[in-house]
């Protein structure tokens, strides 16, 4: 996000320069030949233009990478984890978001999240509705060196994947219509306000705002806590899958899930490093933190599983990688590579215990562990960001200490408060929405539909026909 990068001011400075060119130019003209002044002006513009090319190219690629996370990434990761008869229904939960959220975003979603004035603490306004005023000129409030359109579409990709993450909780037993309605309302009621509060102009939790300053580089609270907590609520509201605990509900293809996880890893570079909103050293720093966090978590989950269960599994390795990616997300632009290794290692072990041990104790059926990985991993990451954030990496507060390691223990509390708000919004919002949608359209499939599988009952098709 723009103000999460200290270098930004110097850059938008370059642009402001042009505005003052006339006056400055006049003064200089007395001693410098006009053709030189003109060349200088052109060179200044050329440099700014080139800066945009470099940053914009990178941000467009990042946008594409984040879309790739939703599909094929998440669609495969989740699709492989369900039983064969639900593979398309599950992939649909991700793929549909690419259509549904995009349309909502274009009409008013972007505006509610990122519109508004310095006073819009909780939600934006409709100033950008129908893409009004969203053009090729940069929006200095967010990113001074890239077209506003790029910023808008990059943010859109986040809004696409967030509800898709929830779908892991209600996999294999939700009605298509209910799901579609739920996702629509959830985006509007939970995601848009949360995104605004943390990243929007005037948002209460803005890292440099006037409210409680929380650090969330790439979406720990906005994306992972909200979706993970909402997932838990969904899992409990919908109840267990038929046959849960007695019938075998093994992943129908860990191969597909592995491909999905690997694509998530690759795409996550766009998610985290892209959150620098430019191709500067901060992007590199976030890139490295992301990779280190994922790697350490994959190894940590693998070893934890090896010790506790007895064998290290492929599913463990990829689950660990995803848990690490989740946890490093809010921290990625604030922590050193070594801290990233540590955050990853902690997340790998904690999420493993959560998914393999704690969940069993409570007994809710979070089918694909959306809560265990995103809810827990996201909360952990948000808090650890408060611990490990350092001005060495991101001097956001102009020389003031950033996190606990810098001596600013209070930041941990800020992170906890912001996380708690995300939990609260996620729980309350989701409960209300579930209740309403259940009345209007129904949420849970009938027994017959569930036995037949979502692919046939909801979509009238099958994932595989291998007999041919």
């Amino acid at each position, binding site marked *: 996000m723009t103000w999460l990068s200290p270098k930004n001011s110097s850059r938008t400075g370059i642009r402001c320069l042009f505005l003052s060119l006339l006056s400055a130019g006049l003064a200089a003209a007395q001693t410098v030949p006009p053709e030189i002044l003109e060349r200088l002006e052109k060179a200044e513009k050329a440099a700014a233009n080139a800066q945009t090319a470099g940053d914009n190219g990178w941000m467009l690629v990042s946008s594409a990478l984040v879309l790739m996370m939703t599909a094929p990434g998440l669609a495969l990761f989740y699709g492989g984890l369900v039983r064969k008869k639900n593979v398309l229904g599950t992939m649909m939960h991700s793929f549909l978001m690419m259509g549904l959220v995009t349309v909502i975003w274009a009409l008013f979603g972007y505006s509610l999240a990122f519109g508004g004035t310095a006073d819009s603490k909780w939600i934006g306004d409709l100033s950008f509705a129908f893409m009004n005023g969203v053009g090729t000129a940069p929006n200095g409030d967010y990113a001074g060196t890239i077209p506003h359109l790029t910023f808008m579409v990059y943010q859109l990709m986040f809004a696409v994947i967030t509800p898709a993450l929830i779908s892991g909780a209600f996999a294999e037993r939700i009605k298509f219509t209910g799901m579609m309605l739920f996702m629509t309302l959830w985006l509007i009621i939970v995601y848009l306000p949360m995104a605004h509060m943390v990243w929007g102009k005037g948002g209460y939790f803005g890292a440099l705002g006037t409210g409680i300053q929380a650090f969330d580089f790439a979406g720990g609270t906005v994306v992972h806590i909200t979706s993970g907590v909402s997932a838990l609520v969904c899992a409990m509201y919908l109840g267990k899958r038929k046959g849960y605990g007695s*019938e075998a509900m093994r992943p129908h293809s860990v191969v597909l899930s592995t491909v999905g996880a690997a694509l998530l890893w690759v795409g996550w570079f766009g998610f985290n490093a892209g959150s620098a909103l430019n191709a500067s050293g901060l992007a590199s720093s976030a890139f490295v933190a992301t990779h280190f966090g994922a790697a350490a978590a994959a190894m940590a989950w693998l070893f934890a599983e090896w010790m506790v269960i007895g064998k290290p599994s492929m599913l463990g390795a990829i689950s660990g990688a995803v848990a690490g990616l989740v946890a490093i997300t809010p921290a990625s632009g604030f922590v050193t590579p070594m801290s990233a290794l540590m955050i990853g290692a902690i997340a790998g072990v904690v999420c493993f215990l959560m998914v393999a041990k704690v969940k069993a104790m409570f007994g809710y059926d979070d089918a694909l562990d959306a809560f265990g990985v995103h809810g827990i991993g996201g909360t952990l990451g948000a808090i650890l960001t408060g611990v490990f954030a350092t001005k060495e990496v991101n001097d956001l507060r102009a020389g003031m200490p950033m996190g606990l390691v810098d001596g600013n223990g209070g930041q941990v509390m800020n992170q906890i408060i912001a996380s708690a708000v995300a939990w609260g919004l996620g729980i309350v919002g989701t409960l209300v929405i579930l209740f309403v949608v259940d009345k209007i359209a129904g949420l849970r499939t009938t027994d017959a539909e569930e036995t037949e599988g979502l692919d046939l009952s909801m979509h009238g098709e*099958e994932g595989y026909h291998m007999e041919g």
Partner: protein
Amino acid sequence: MKRIEAIIQPHKLDDAKEALKGIGIDGMTITEVRGHGRQKGHTETYRGMEYKVDLLPKVKLEMVVADARLEEVIKTLTAAARTGKIGDGKIFVFEVADAIRIRNDDRGDAAL
């Protein structure tokens, strides 16, 4: 010896297996099959092309048992695999001429 062949609903396999284990029937061979009977199939549509699918997934259990155990097995199986709805499947019984254990050439009832 009799060979009992039961065609049942796939999601009843675990129940059936447990029930059989309960009466001491361990040896069995299972095949994924598709069945056609009174149970209505479903329709799949791909880009407007409609396919009526009337072959539904079933599981076939085959077990060879001593003559004496036949009725007990049938009773156990029907109880475990029944849902009461069309499509529950059938059990067929065949005479077996001989059985051989490959490992050690045991023959007849001893091979089961």
